[in-house]
Structures are given as structure tokens and as C-alpha cells.
């Protein structure tokens, strides 16, 4: 057992730090630091900068454009992203569908989609949830019926984040209704411009447009857009969910938020002193910091096991539960730091997401938006209740 980095790893850390310092666009960093939603243009610009350096998809195999880094290097990289207030890439292409394509896709699909994901040419979204199937994902109803070289897709997806920006959607569809639920599902890649697809925005609690409903009305999708075998989609779906759960723990982002809260506490004037003189506030912040440290070392232990070639089972569910708990506790405390100014939130549409026109501190707007938005963290990606079921079944055998 050894916690220290080698000289090579330290040199790598310095290289990453230096790169981020020189290349992270100031406007992108600023939005991210204040907890505001990204702009598509800024996000794409930043992903292209990372890709040019070859660092957009550290987890991918080298042959498809990955970095070949060790688990430790990947860890260092993600920590440095957090430290520099650099937004992580949008997960749908890089962390979700990309790995499905290079693991289960055919050569033609790999050649076509992987470079486009890396170059951020295609913005992907996720067509998993449906109105009737939330936690019970396998009960999905969207149908794909074979017609020559096409499938004809009918149905509806919901909670589709950022679909309004998307060029492509990866979808779970029902191709056989006469078998056990999980055995009749296929995995399709669908061009969002195909006739018959319509979007309806869902305005969130934060009064921002992040979520959407996606409707499919006789949408023709070429059979060559199917990943792997017909009716085997559940296998690919589960593989993708495992990746999703690890990435939504957002540890480095939470570390950044702890640091930001410490800065705020040290500068926010409160009743004759500073917020950091408030013992209750600081105890909560320190508690979160400790919880986060426990989560980080849990993640490192898991990484170390993966590096040794030992497979994980339901452990990512633990990262998801604890990670989302911490994110929510942090955004709640960020709002609390604002005192009454927590109430003075207006969405981006109304005032560009800034409170400047009021007399509140500059960082006053982001925390409430994020606090509201991240109530979803314990819901999306499989609710935390469902994650506990998974752990109790797979790890504890209950």
C-alpha cells in the first residue's frame, strides 16, 4: 500500500496543470465556477481544445483515441480538471455511447461515430427513460418494428437532458413484446434530424430549459444504426449504466465547491465578522469535506482493484449515492452561505443568470440554480433508492 505519487506521476500532474492554466477559456471557466449552465458553443470549444491535445477521452482504449493512461494518471487528470474549474466533457458521447460503440459496435459504426464524438461534431443525448418507465427501465414501451432495411420507431422518451442541442440520440427500443421484458430490447443510434422526431421542452424547478420530452412518430431508422444484436440491447444498456454511475459521483467538482465555499466563508461579511466565524456553518462544511475525503479514498480503493484486474459489482452504486448526497449537501450549504440572498434567484432567461443588478454578491445566482437542479442527482441515473436495492442484492446478497 502506498499513497504517494511517483516522480513520473508528479511530472504528469505538472504538465496537466500547466496545460489547463494556459488553455482553459476564461469565459468557460467563469460560468462553471459560478455553477451556471454551460453554453453549447463554449462547451464544444473547450472539448475541442482538450481533443486537440488528445485528452478528451482518457478512458477510451488507445486505438480509438484514448490516452493509455494508468488509473492513477486518470485520477490525477480528473483532479486537476476540478482544481482548475474546468468543466468535464458532456458525458453522453464520451462516457456513455462512445464506450458502447467501441465495445459492442461494428467496424463501420466505430469508424463513423468515434472520431465525430472526439471532435465534438455530434452532440449526443440519451433516450432511456419513458413516462411510464423510470426506475423500472426495462418496462419501456417505445417500439421499433422492422420494415426492410429500416426500423419504424414510435413512442416517447422523457427527461432527455440537453436534447435541444443534440444531433444524435441513443435509444432503447422494444423490438419484441412477446418475451421477458429485458429480452426484447434493442439499442439504436438515431439522427435527431430524422423526420417524425419532435421535442417538447420541460422547464425545470430552476426555471431553466435543460430537460426535454422526445416524441417518435413513424421515425425510420436504418437497421445499420443498431448496436450489436437485435433484442440484446439490455446488455449494452447495463454496461452503459455502470459507466454512468461512476461518472456521476463528480468528486473533483465537489472538491472544487468545498474550496469555493471556504473562499466565500473567508470573505463574506456577516454581522460584524466573517462567515467563517460561524461555527455551525463551518462544522457543516468540514463534515462535508470529511465525507468527501471518505468518498475519494473509496473511489481510489476501487481504482486500485480495477488496476489489479479485480472486477467490481455494485460498488459504483455506492459512489453514486454518496457522491450525489455530497453534491446536494454542498449546494444546500452554498445557498445557506448567501443568507437571504438565496431567495433572490432568477433564471438565465430573465437575467443572464447574474445578480449584478441587485446588490447581492457576484456569486449569488449560481448556488440556488444548482441547488434546485441537483435535487435530481439523487433521482437520475437510477434513484438512490434503486442503487441501495442493487447493493443489497449484488453485494450483500439480501
Amino acid at each position, binding site marked *: 500500500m502506498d499513497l504517494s505519487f511517483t516522480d513520473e506521476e508528479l511530472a504528469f500532474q505538472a504538465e496537466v496543470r500547466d496545460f489547463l492554466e494556459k488553455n482553459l477559456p476564461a469565459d468557460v471557466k467563469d460560468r462553471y465556477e459560478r455553477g451556471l449552465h454551460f453554453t453549447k458553443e463554449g462547451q464544444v470549444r473547450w472539448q475541442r481544445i482538450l481533443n486537440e491535445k488528445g485528452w478528451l477521452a482518457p478512458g477510451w482504449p488507445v486505438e480509438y483515441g484514448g490516452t493509455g493512461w494508468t488509473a492513477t494518471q486518470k485520477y490525477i487528470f480528473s483532479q486537476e480538471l476540478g482544481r482548475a474549474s474546468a468543466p468535464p466533457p458532456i458525458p453522453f458521447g464520451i462516457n456513455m455511447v462512445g464506450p458502447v460503440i467501441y465495445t459492442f459496435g461494428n467496424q463501420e459504426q466505430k469508424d463513423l461515430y468515434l472520431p465525430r464524438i472526439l471532435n465534438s461534431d455530434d452532440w449526443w443525448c440519451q433516450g432511456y*427513460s419513458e413516462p*411510464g*418507465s*423510470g*426506475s*423500472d427501465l426495462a*418496462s419501456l414501451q417505445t417500439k421499433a418494428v422492422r420494415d426492410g432495411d429500416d426500423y419504424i420507431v414510435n413512442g416517447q422518451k*422523457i*427527461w432527455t437532458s440537453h436534447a435541444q442541442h443534440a444531433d444524435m440520440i441513443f435509444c432503447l427500443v422494444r423490438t419484441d413484446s412477446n418475451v421477458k421484458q429485458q429480452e426484447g430490447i434493442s439499442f439504436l443510434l438515431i439522427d435527431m434530424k430524422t423526420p417524425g422526431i419532435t421535442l417538447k421542452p*420541460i*422547464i*425545470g*424547478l430552476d*426555471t431553466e430549459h435543460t*430537460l426535454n420530452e422526445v416524441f417518435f412518430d413513424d421515425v425510420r431508422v436504418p437497421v445499420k444504426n443498431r448496436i450489436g444484436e437485435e433484442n440484446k440491447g439490455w446488455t449494452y444498456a447495463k454496461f452503459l449504466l455502470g459507466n454512468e454511475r461512476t461518472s456521476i459521483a463528480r468528486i473533483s467538482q465537489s472538491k472544487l465547491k468545498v474550496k469555493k465555499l471556504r473562499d466565500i466563508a473567508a470573505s463574506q*461579511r*456577516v*454581522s*460584524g465578522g466573517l462567515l467563517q466565524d*460561524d461555527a*455551525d*456553518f463551518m462544522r457543516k462544511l468540514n463534515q462535508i469535506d470529511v465525507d468527501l475525503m471518505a468518498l475519494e479514498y473509496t473511489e481510489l480503493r476501487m481504482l486500485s482493484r480495477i488496476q489489479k484486474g479485480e472486477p467490481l459489482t455494485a460498488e459504483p452504486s455506492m459512489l453514486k449515492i454518496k457522491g450525489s448526497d455530497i453534491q*446536494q449537501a454542498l449546494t*444546500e450549504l452554498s*445557498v*445557506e452561505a448567501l*443568507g*437571504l*440572498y*438565496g*431567495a*433572490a*434567484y*432568477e433564471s438565465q432567461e*430573465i*437575467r443572464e443568470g447574474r445578480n449584478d*443588478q*441587485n*446588490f*447581492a*454578491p457576484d456569486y449569488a445566482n449560481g448556488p*440556488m440554480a444548482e441547488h*434546485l437542479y441537483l*435535487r*435530481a442527482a*439523487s*433521482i*437520475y441515473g437510477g*434513484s438512490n*433508492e434503486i442503487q*441501495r436495492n442493487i447493493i443489497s442484492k449484488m453485494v450483500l446478497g439480501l
Partner: protein
Amino acid sequence: MDFELSEEQVLLKDSVDRFVQDNYSPDDRLKLSQTELGFSRDHWKTMAELGWLGMAFPEEVGGFGGGAVETMIMMESMGRGLVLEPFVSTVLLGGALIAEAGSEEQIESIIPSVIEGQTMLAFAYAEPQSRFNLNDVETTASKSGDGYVLNGTKSVVYHGGTADKIVISARTSGESRDADGISLFVVDREAAGMDVRAYRTVDGQRAADIRLENVSVGADALLGAEGAAAPVIEKITDRAIGALCAEAVGAMAAANDITNEYLKTRKQFGIPIGKFQVLQHRMVDMYMEAEQSKSMSDMAAMKLDLGYENDTKRAVSAAKSQIGKACKFVGQQSVQLHGGMGMTDEYSIGHYFKRLSTIEMLFGNTDYHLNRFSALS
């Protein structure tokens, strides 16, 4: 000891319940909150006609002489519908301050007009640095001729953008945070030097930040004795906290009803999700928090009606800290149990969550009141 309502109180409750039922469907409320004004002047008129705007004022100033219990009854029902009209700002804060500290002349010129629904008020007490400390006042009022000149910044003044008159706390002497030396002034919102910037708040209401730049007022704007406003502010604020606690109780009860219904109807894995034990226990915990809150709110209202002693202040802080904790738990878990549905602005549960979250912070959050409770014990 008696926690039951009298006949008159039952009638009052029924009448507010009916108003809420008729005018505050989730859809109605959402639409109203999105209008420029953020509430309805017609509703305000109705509330005046029904006598509600005078309910909390003593009979000697022209009110109906209702106490904290009557206020509690009304606020609980209004909390169920998340009513948007500026009842707290106008009646329980601005109006109550004037009724408590004002001269006969001030009372006569303003309170009847408030009761009739003609004049709306707001109370500007918070400042950017003050957090929850009511005595942290840096806004100054300097003597000038017969009157005063006000300078400073007031934050998050609920309904400050639409009030006709604003009651403003300002320092006439002493150091920042001294209890002595704070005075109250009644100022026209449109007075010269008032820079009022209104905005929407997260709970669907309206507030304003106000910069006072050499705002000149006459001696008749001073409310009560110069420099002696701190105890008045504390008392009226405590009564408003009692009212907010009741609003929270109503909002929690509604949120729990809505969530409970959802658990019975939403199916996953072939059965209603309410059949899952983890969700049953969560719902039970939410129910218990709401019941504990109701007990605390009733207790605080009854104590407020008995007088205003140290014990009353303790009771108010105890209620606010318990209810603050409950607000967060019930609000957040209501959203959680609704899954994605809970995350949408269109569906009502999120609005309960947002209002409950702001009630937790208004006039001091859970920690603040637990500390105050401890200091008063």
C-alpha cells in the same frame, strides 16, 4: 388546555380554505406567479372584503382584534395553496409595525387604508452584511432640519417593488449592530432617492433591493421613539415568524398529501410505488415531521397570544428551528419521491419545495434559531 378551534375560528378557516380552493389550483398559482405583478389585485380586494386584512389588527386601531391564533389559522390555509398576495408583508410586517409603534396620526392615516386593501406595505430590514441579525443596521438616518436623510442599502425586501409605503429600519445613533439607536421610518416607495430594483424570487414571489440615496423624509415619517425600534422589530418579527411557521405547516400538509397520492398511483415494477417499504418509511417520516411542526406552530401561536415574554421568544425560536428542519426534509423528499416529475416547474410539488426552502431561511434559518433558543434558555 385546548387545541381545538372555536366556532368563529372554524368559520374563518373554512372561509380561507374556500378561497384557496376556488382560486389557487396549482395551475392558477403558476400562472399568477408568472405575471408581471406576481399576485392578483382582485384577490387582494376579495381578502379585504372578507375582512382578512383587518383580522390581525387590534380593535382600537380599527381591526378585528384577532390574535396570533387567528393569523395562524389563516396562514396555514394560505400555505396549503401557496398564496401569493402580500399578506405577510403588508399586514403582518408593515401594518403590524405601524399599529404597534405608530402615533395616532400615523395609524389613522395608514391602517384603515391597509384594512380596506388600498395601501400595500413592505418591511425593509435586511442588509447585505446583516444575514439574520435584526440589529445589524448600517443604513443611516441623519437629522436634517425637522426631518431625516436616509442613506444605505436594504436587501431582499419582499414585495418592496409593489408596496405603496415601505417601513425601513435605519440607524439614528450607535454602532453597527447595537440594539440601541435603531429607528423605523415609513417612506413612500416613490420618494426621491429610492432606487428600488424588483425581481422574482425563487419561491415565485417578488422582492426588491433598495438603495437609499439621500432620501429626505419629514419628522412625521419616524415610527415610534427615535433609536428605540429594536424591541418593536423583534416582537413584530417574532409574530411574523409564528405566521410563517403556520404557512409552512399548511404547505407541508399539502406537499405530503400530494406525495402520498402519487405513491398510491404511480406504478413501477407492476405495483404502486407506495408498496415499497423504503418509500413507506420515508412517507411516514415526512408525516411525523409535519405533525411535529403543527404542534410547534400551534404552541407558538398560543404563546404569542399570552404575551411577549422571554418564554415566548424561546417558543418562537424553537418552532422556527424545528419547522425549518422539517421544511427541508419534507420539501426535498417530496421532490425525491416524485422522481423526475418532481423536478419540473409545471408540476406543483416543486413549488412547495421552493417555498418551504425559503421559509427555512426567512427571518433566520434553523441554526440561527437553535442558537437563539439556546441563548434565551
